């Protein structure tokens, strides 16, 4: 028994073990503080679905040997472009405009993700060995550069641009497009009407429907965002298929030992490029899913730090800077996002000063990344 626990807490699994224990502890405290566990669990699932594909985007990059993709914001910008184009050109009068809008956005995201990923991959192939630091600052510069682009791109849709002056808004609501579309698709919701105290179980209903029908005093007590979770799992399966294809196996060999790959006739640079492009495209699609769950798309500096949460999540899931599996994504995304959801009310209850839960989020995120990076350094020095 003790050996079993020890083996669970060893090496790359250590962060996963610590976070799991901590998460369970938080749930216990939340229960003692009489926090609504159902709501917390439901919100955890929502955040899980929203962030899942962004975490999944780490897998091809790590497997191709370029390390966790700290350049994820580059893909995110590609996804934002896809969403903006979809919003500009898909009229809300169209039949099934929400689904069409989502699909157009995804197609745009794949296009821009592939183009940006190709360029970014060219860069990473020239800086082998220091990908992670260079990726971070490439992303920072790119996000800053795009801040100018958001101001000057010729978008015309009134919902997206500032009423006065020029340029796109900071946050653009997706209420009238496909915001919440996947969250609500095939979803299960338990709703409580505060006024009457009655509970109600709703299937496949949007938040708008609940407000309109039961009034604004109704609140969701528990929910399963089925569509979004299914979409995430579908992408996990697609990536799983890819990494078990001939090309995927070659990519993993490159990540494991580039010299070996070369002596097996594998084109190392092409495999790395493919991994980076795939990661960037997944990042682009990931932000669409994230935004539709959030209800808003955020431009300008918002993408800048989004890579860190995704990196921390996959590392918590048991991955290292050199090894990552789909299971690490599934476990890590859940642990990390649940942690953020549960820590918020608990921290607020214990220290009413406020803001503590965000401090906590930052400590966890950067702490885990630091742990993983220190381990990479330790290996090369040994």
């Amino acid at each position, binding site marked *: 028994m003790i050996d079993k626990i020890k083996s669970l807490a060893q090496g790359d699994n250590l962060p996963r073990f610590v976070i799991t224990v901590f998460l369970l502890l938080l749930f216990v405290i939340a229960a003692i503080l009489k926090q609504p566990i159902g709501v917390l669990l439901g919100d955890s699932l929502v955040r899980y679905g929203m962030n899942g594909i962004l975490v999944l985007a780490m897998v091809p990059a790590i497997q191709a040997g370029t390390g966790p993709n700290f350049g994820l914001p580059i893909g995110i910008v590609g996804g934002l472009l896809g969403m903006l184009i979809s919003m500009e050109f898909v009229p809300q009068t169209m039949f099934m405009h929400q689904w069409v809008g989502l699909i157009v956005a995804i197609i745009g995201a794949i296009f821009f993700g592939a183009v940006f990923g190709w360029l970014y991959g060219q860069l990473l192939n020239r800086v082998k060995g220091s990908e992670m630091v260079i990726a971070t600052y490439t992303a920072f510069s790119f996000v800053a550069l795009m801040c100018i682009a958001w101001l000057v791109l010729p978008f015309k849709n009134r919902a997206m641009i500032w009423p006065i002056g020029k340029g796109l808004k900071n946050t653009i609501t997706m209420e009238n497009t496909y915001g919440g579309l996947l969250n609500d698709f095939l979803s299960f919701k338990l709703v409580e009407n505060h006024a009457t105290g009655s509970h109600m179980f709703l299937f496949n209903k949007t938040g708008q429907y609940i407000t309109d029908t039961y009034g604004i005093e109704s609140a969701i007590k528990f929910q399963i965002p089925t569509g979004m979770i299914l979409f995430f799992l579908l992408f996990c399966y697609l990536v799983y298929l890819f990494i078990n294809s*001939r090309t995927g196996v*070659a990519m993993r*060999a490159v990540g*494991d030992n580039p*010299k070996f790959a070369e*002596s*097996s*006739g594998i084109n190392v640079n092409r495999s790395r490029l493919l991994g980076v492009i795939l990661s960037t495209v997944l990042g682009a699609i990931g932000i669409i899913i994230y935004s539709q769950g959030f209800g808003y798309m955020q431009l300008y500096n918002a993408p800048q730090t989004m890579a860190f949460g995704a990196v921390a999540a996959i590392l918590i899931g048991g991955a290292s800077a050199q090894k990552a599996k789909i299971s690490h994504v599934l476990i890590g995304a859940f642990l990390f996002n649940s942690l953020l959801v549960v820590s918020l009310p608990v921290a607020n209850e214990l220290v009413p000063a406020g803001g503590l839960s965000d401090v906590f989020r930052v400590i966890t995120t950067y702490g885990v990344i630091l742990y993983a990076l220190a381990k990479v350094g330790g290996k090369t020095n040994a």
Partner: protein
Amino acid sequence: MNVLEMKDISKDYFGNRVLKNVNLSVKPGEIHALLGENGAGKSTLMNILFGMSVIQTTGGFEGEVSINGQPTNIVSPHQAMDEGIGMVHQEFMLIPGFTISENVKLNRELTKHNLVSAVTRNPRMETIDIARNAKDARAALDKLDIGIDEYTRVSGLPVGYMQFVEIAREIDKTGLKVLVFDEPTAVLTESEALNLMDAMKKLANEGIGILFITHRLDEVIYCADRVTILRDGEWVATKETDDTNVVELAELMVGRKVEILPKDKKVAEDADIIMSISDLHVNMPGETVKGVDLEIRKGEILGIGGLAGQGKIGIANGIMGLYPTTGSITYKGKTLKLNDTKSTLDSGIAFVSEDRRGIGLLLDSSIEDNIAITSMQVKGQFLKKAGPFTLRDKEAIREHANQMIEEFDIRCLGPNQFSKRLSGGNQQKVCLARAVTLAPDLLLVSEPTRGIDIGAKKLVLDNLIKLNEEGMTIIMTSSELAELRSISDRIVIVNEGKVEGILHPEDSDADFGLMMAGTYNKVRGGAK
């Protein structure tokens, strides 16, 4: 009295005996050459002399070292320096951006008082006395008859001069009794080497004992007074150079019992040529190939031997296109595309690398993936259709891996064990299994038995013979001459990036020794 005396020195690394009762003595004013193949134990002996930590941390050594007749126990390089033992390194340990005088006096600088040191009375605060340091350096350089200015920066110097700066640094140290030269001529041109040896003679005349490590036989004859020969960690002989000659030294260096494994068939001298190589240049760092011409016959085992760093390893790596290569290779009547690993693999050539852990294996992958991956990439094997997707065929890989594990007797916990957890010998079998899975007509094997135990060694060699009997042509590169002689049909000896000559396993030890030392053509008049 001997200035240095090493008596009955024995050393083992984890039960592996690398030195057995070796004796070595150096008289004052004598140049004593230490001769031996790679792995004969020269470096270990020097590590003991200098008290390197690798010796202390692996359990010390047996035997006795005396300096000037005083038994001493040297436990650190610093102590060795204090005892008056100096070393001129093979790779230059100089700081390029410093001047010659700064390099010579590094960490032993003469200093003078300044205001701060006068007040604090702390010698660490004193200023470096550049003029006095330069004077010392000048004196040392003059002793060597080197006219170069002591204020010149080291970075621009020709290689030959750098060596002299190193020597100047050593002789500047007071109380130098023994100076060790570790293969100093390896990087020098012939005339530079002559200069160096003249300088060595001059130093010896001043009463310093010189220990000269080399594998160039004619240099031994030219400048040494006595020579000690090591082989496989054992002392073979110590001779006066006046009483011996190059041929005898070569024989002593190489000679050992060779067990020729039985082979059922001999390859006829006029068998078809499967590959012909002409003017091959390979730019592999440390193993440069400088123009090799070679013909490989169908069905033979061709051995490639030679000393480390002479370029034998580069040939197979060049054929595989792993390092920048020029020249031309014809394989089965067609020109082989150079610098293109994929097309070499496609044409039916497989490679087992000399760097097992660095290139030969995916250490963090399972045995079965290691075995299957190259064939999957090159030949599209081990794949299956699943709807619109083509995926790796786990069952087929497992089945093939199990078969290979049995065939090559790979000792493991199962086909999904990570390859990094295997012993060296079993890792080598995995590498071999991977190459054989490609079903090549020509197999290149480099250093197949390096770092593996005797039992595994025999299994690997037996497997090579078996594959050869089944019709596979094999080119085996190895540092172990005995092993090459035991299974090859012909053996090519490479020296200084070129083919020195081709021998048969039965040829004499002296011939092998002369060829490896690069003096064969001089001694035997170039005839073969």
